[in-house]
């Protein structure tokens, strides 16, 4: 009796969570399909569903270039972070050397560092050395966002790997390279991949550096471009177009979440609080 009632409660509670998480998302999707007067009709859903805003968005150079910038900059900084973090995390998880804890502490200190505190000096420096409004001008500060979390997440993953298996394979006659490729790579790949997704989310989400260190569509990423978005003409409200652009940039991350839900949760929590 008791357990049946609590099962019902749990289902209700789960539904509430799903409503909580999806409500604003459904709203912005609905807004992005509104056309003309519908935008200001103060209703949740449009009276006519229309793709017009999406056409506008993809005809706007500001948005398409921002999309290109965001994808390029986020991917490059993710790649660099993951490569550097893999080396460091391997050392932390497997080797014995003094200063190991210092590396982790430094990473933690940088993870909590306020981005806006280094925007001023970077703004000044980038203008002097010509990195202002360029891809490298954003990739470099993005490393300060993605590298610390990548080191933490990866060292937590690497600690779980049964490294003895490498030696076991060698005893069984595998060469060093075979042991590495056939045993270690498959074990380490999921952790590296999950770390890459989390790092990508962080770079994709950045707004502070995006608006402070760019001025044209040369390097301006999507979140910053959204804040400068105007409608098709000066006289049109940008509301619907911004919503459509927001939906477009949300789709890739939602797909990543749907595909790799379990791994992302493991990456965020497994490392986050010691079990």
């Amino acid at each position, binding site marked *: 009796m008791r357990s049946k009632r609590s099962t019902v409660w*749990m289902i209700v*509670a*789960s539904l509430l*969570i*799903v409503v909580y*998480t*999806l409500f*604003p998302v459904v709203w*912005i999707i609905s807004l992005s399909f509104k056309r003309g007067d519908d*935008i200001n009709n*103060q*209703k949740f859903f449009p009276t006519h569903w229309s793709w017009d805003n999406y056409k506008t968005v993809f005809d706007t150079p500001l948005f398409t270039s921002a999309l290109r910038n965001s994808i390029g900059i986020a991917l490059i900084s993710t790649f660099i972070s993951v490569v550097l973090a893999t*080396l*460091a995390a391997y*050392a932390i998880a497997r*080797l*014995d050397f003094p200063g190991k804890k*210092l*590396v982790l*502490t*430094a*990473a*933690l*200190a940088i993870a*909590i*560092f*306020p981005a806006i*505190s*280094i*925007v*001023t*000096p*970077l*703004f*000044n420096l980038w*203008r002097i050395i010509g990195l202002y409004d360029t891809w490298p001008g954003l990739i*470099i*500060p993005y490393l*300060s966002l993605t590298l610390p979390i990548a*080191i933490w997440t990866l*060292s937590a993953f690497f600690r779980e790997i049964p490294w003895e298996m490498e030696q076991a394979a060698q005893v069984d006659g595998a060469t060093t390279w075979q042991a590495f490729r056939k045993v270690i790579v498959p074990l380490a790949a999921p952790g590296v991949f999950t770390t890459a997704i989390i790092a990508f*989310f962080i770079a994709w989400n950045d*707004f*502070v550096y995006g*608006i*402070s260190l760019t001025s044209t569509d040369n390097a301006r990423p999507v*979140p910053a471009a959204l804040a400068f978005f105007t409608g098709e003409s000066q006289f049109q409200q940008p*509301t619907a177009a*911004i919503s459509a652009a927001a939906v477009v940039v*949300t789709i890739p991350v939602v797909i990543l*979440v749907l595909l790799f*839900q379990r791994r992302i*949760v493991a990456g*965020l*929590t*497994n490392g*986050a*609080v*010691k*079990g």
Partner: protein
Amino acid sequence: VTATTTFAPQPEVAVPTGKPHLSDRARAERRLGWMLSAPAVIVMLAVTAYPIVNAVYLSLFNYRLTNPAGREFIGLKNYTVILTDGLWWGAVGTTLLITIVTVAVELVIGFAFALVMNKVIFGKGVVRTAILIPYAIITVVSAYAWYYAFASNSGFVNSWFNTDRDWFGQRWSSLFVICLSEIWKTTPFMSLLLLAGLAQVPEDMQEAAMVDGATWWQRMWRVTLPNMKGAIMVALLFRTLDAFRIFDNVFVMTQGANGTETVSLLAYRQTISRTEIGLGSAVSVLLFLCVVLICFIFIKGFRTDLSKVRGS
């Protein structure tokens, strides 16, 4: 460098005592360890330690980007200007208010979510996937979604609740919507950290308490919460620091109008909009010191044990 030393509660470098002679193998392992971590450490220091030191230096000058020739050394004058200005204290007050409200609400909702996720059997995958969606959505997108929901022309909120309130015309209602967006976006992260903490509570202690006839509340207060105190404090520390840096939501919704300016926004406005590099640097340094102070309060005052964090 300041960041690392102030943050470490105790000197963490373990000095190997009683092992004066290292074997060649151990020495080679050390060298490899240093070589592999060096690139990451150098990059991290180059992109944060150098700029913050540079910010400290720039904060001692009266320096406008539009007038580089007029740059002059003025010592701590920028700091006295800021600290005697109501604008700074207003921004600090607003930031603290947003931080305390959002973190407190997130702790309660996040804990409830964690309890549900811990117990749920049906549709576990669905709930966990759903909870990740706000986490993965760009903060600016969340800000626009909530902004348009409350805006008096495009929003449905006013018609649902039958008012014609101008939400972004006054301070308190603006702050309410800003907090709403911030809470929606970051509660999932909090709940995942708390879920990991819940998993640490020993099952047999729960059962023993249940056998002894403890009620749900008694078990919660006497068994569950004390056992996950470490996880709660770490989640609180991370979220407090994050909330104190709030920028995106405020920028999108009000640009700091009507008394909603936060410390980050103040720094942005001095530097980027007004190109007052000297003054902006001083605000940045003060913001950094606030973050260090928050860490100090958590670690010394609330005894947050950071060795519980992430695999160390």
